[in-house]
């Protein structure tokens, strides 16, 4: 296991194809987090994120031949599949309401916490993060993908462009427009929260 953790994704995948369960476990531990988070951030649904993660790794387990190392990294490949599966799942369950799933809190501020400045600041930040998540989920698909990949997953424009199958300039402009929308909504929300806390 110590040796396997040092192997690159491609090498691990080759071992998985030849039947190595240890290689699969290492690959899963390494890549499940980003795949799950991406699916969750895109859909706002933990059940969709679970299903997508499960399906992707089952696919790797049973047939990894569709991955071509010459066309990009395994990470990009997994993001690409996750993206397609998430959209498919979301299209299948139009009735799904994503905003309530990301955070389980009810959003109300306990009154006894408001008096403490540190907690107040944390609360404001938490509220801002919640607002950001809602705002991201409300973005048009292309903008949402750009924000999730470039800002939440901190991928380069080039990597994001490869995953999305578009030009780098397109990613850059989508991200720019998406951030402008998010900043606008966040500023409005912050102003409301600020008024509530005063």
């Amino acid at each position, binding site marked *: 296991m110590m040796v396997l953790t040092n192997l690159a994704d491609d090498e691990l995948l080759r071992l998985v194809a030849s039947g190595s369960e240890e290689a699969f476990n290492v690959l899963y531990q390494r890549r499940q987090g980003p795949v799950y988070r991406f699916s969750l951030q895109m859909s706002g649904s933990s059940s969709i994120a679970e299903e997508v993660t499960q399906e992707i790794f089952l696919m790797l387990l049973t047939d990894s031949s569709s991955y071509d190392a010459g066309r990009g990294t395994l990470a990009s490949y997994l993001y690409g599949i996750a993206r397609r599966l998430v959209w498919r799942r979301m299209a299948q369950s139009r009735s799904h309401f994503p905003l309530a799933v990301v955070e389980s809190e009810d959003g109300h501020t306990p009154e006894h916490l408001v008096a403490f400045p540190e907690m107040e600041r944390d609360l404001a930040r938490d509220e801002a993060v919640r607002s950001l*998540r809602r705002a991201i989920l409300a973005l048009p698909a292309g903008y949402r993908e750009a924000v999730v990949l470039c800002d*939440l997953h901190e991928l380069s424009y080039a990597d994001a462009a490869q995953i999305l199958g578009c030009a780098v300039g397109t990613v850059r402009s989508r991200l720019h427009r998406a951030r402008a929308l998010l*900043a606008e909504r966040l500023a409005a929300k912050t102003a409301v929260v600020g008024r509530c806390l005063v």
Partner: protein
Amino acid sequence: MNCSEFESVVVGMARGEVMDAPVLQPGMAHAAACPRCADRLASEKNLSEVMAAAVAEDAAREAPPRVSGILAGALRERRAAAARLRRLWVRRAIAGAIAAMLLLGAGVALRKTLDARAARVSAALSAAKEAVDPVDAADEVMTDFIPVVYDPDPIGHGSLVRVELPRAALSAFGLPVNEDRGEDLVQADLLLDDDGLMRAVRFVE
């Protein structure tokens, strides 16, 4: 740098992207001089901070153990399927080896049996020739003795009986027959063993 040019670099500045000094410095200078663009930069920086908080919060998010449990089940199933396949191949290999050995053994046994039969028939016919009266045989044209029944034991004693058969009987032994003369009689010597069993026949002309 004007406000429009600033708008094209503000996201990069807020995200902390690596920027060339000839771009970054005029951008900072413009933000210092333009309150609207300063607000825009502050807003973008605030978004980046909240984004960073979201990233930090998400860093611990992973697929629930349920997923790894399902995958572990799939791994077990794959392992079992591979074992089944291995067992199947081993069984096939063993069955193939046994079949090959049986075929080989049967072939050898058949070959031995055929060789032995050929030797016994040859010996039986030689003995039959010796049993024939040589004087009579010298005056007549006759076929070789044709074995009628298979008997691996060479004939030791016997007797020769001259009979007449319809010429058509020749065809039963693979000899050519003129159909126009099928009713005619032809002489034949029957070689009988001590039990009276006909062992061979020859046709005489």
